[in-house]
């Protein structure tokens, strides 16, 4: 299983151990964190929701593609669901490889594809008391623009 969800804090030490490989000379990981602002609003907490049956299949496909496309040894992605506070880790990606270059490239590829393809939704709660589904509320009222999904919001 190379993509999974957890409703409790991501155990990065345990996840990293899954990537250990005697043929690997390096390891790269990415952590996405809950940030306190997005698009001009002060964020106080987040909720993540997923269509898990399809999300796990699509996440597995993304990691399998990365393993095929880049010459890396092991790769894994773990995503949180449920309620998260500021600075909590929302997503973790780890890759081990013979050389560092492929590990960086594959790690970047996996997080970028996960953000665009996996059916996961994020509801932001704001200091103002308001809340909104990211990429859904504003795009319902105005023509879709893609800045939210490229803002590296975590």
């Amino acid at each position, binding site marked *: 299983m190379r993509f999974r969800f957890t409703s409790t804090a991501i155990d990065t030490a345990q996840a990293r151990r899954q990537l250990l490989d005697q043929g690997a000379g390096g390891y790269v990981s990415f952590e996405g964190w809950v940030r306190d602002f997005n698009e001009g609003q002060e964020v106080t907490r987040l909720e993540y929701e997923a269509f898990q049956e399809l999300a796990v299949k699509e996440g597995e496909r993304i990691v399998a593609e990365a393993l095929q496309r880049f010459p890396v040894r092991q790769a894994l992605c773990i995503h949180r669901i449920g309620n998260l506070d500021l600075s909590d880790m929302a997503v973790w990606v780890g890759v081990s490889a013979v050389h560092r270059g492929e590990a960086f490239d594959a790690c970047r590829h996996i997080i970028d594809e996960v953000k*665009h393809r996996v059916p996961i939704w994020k509801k932001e709660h704001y200091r103002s008391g308001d809340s909104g589904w990211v990429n859904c509320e504003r795009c319902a009222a105005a023509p879709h623009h893609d800045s939210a999904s490229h803002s590296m919001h975590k």
Partner: protein
Amino acid sequence: MQLKVQYYALMREQAGRSEEMLETAAATPADLYVELTSRYRFTLTREQLKVAVNSEFSDWSRRLAAGDAVVFIPPVAGG
């Protein structure tokens, strides 16, 4: 024909439910979305959505069969 429809995120809130069994004459996911939008006033247009049938991405023109499970997928925001 009876279908199972599951709702997530904004659409779950707008429908006021996370799933339902539905008796419908809709032949395709596209027809079903028109029917459900008139019932629940979904604000997302079909162009903003993807659709899944039986937990796999599907075309909007797929012929639905009795017992299919349909999920409309709003713009995603993982990470």
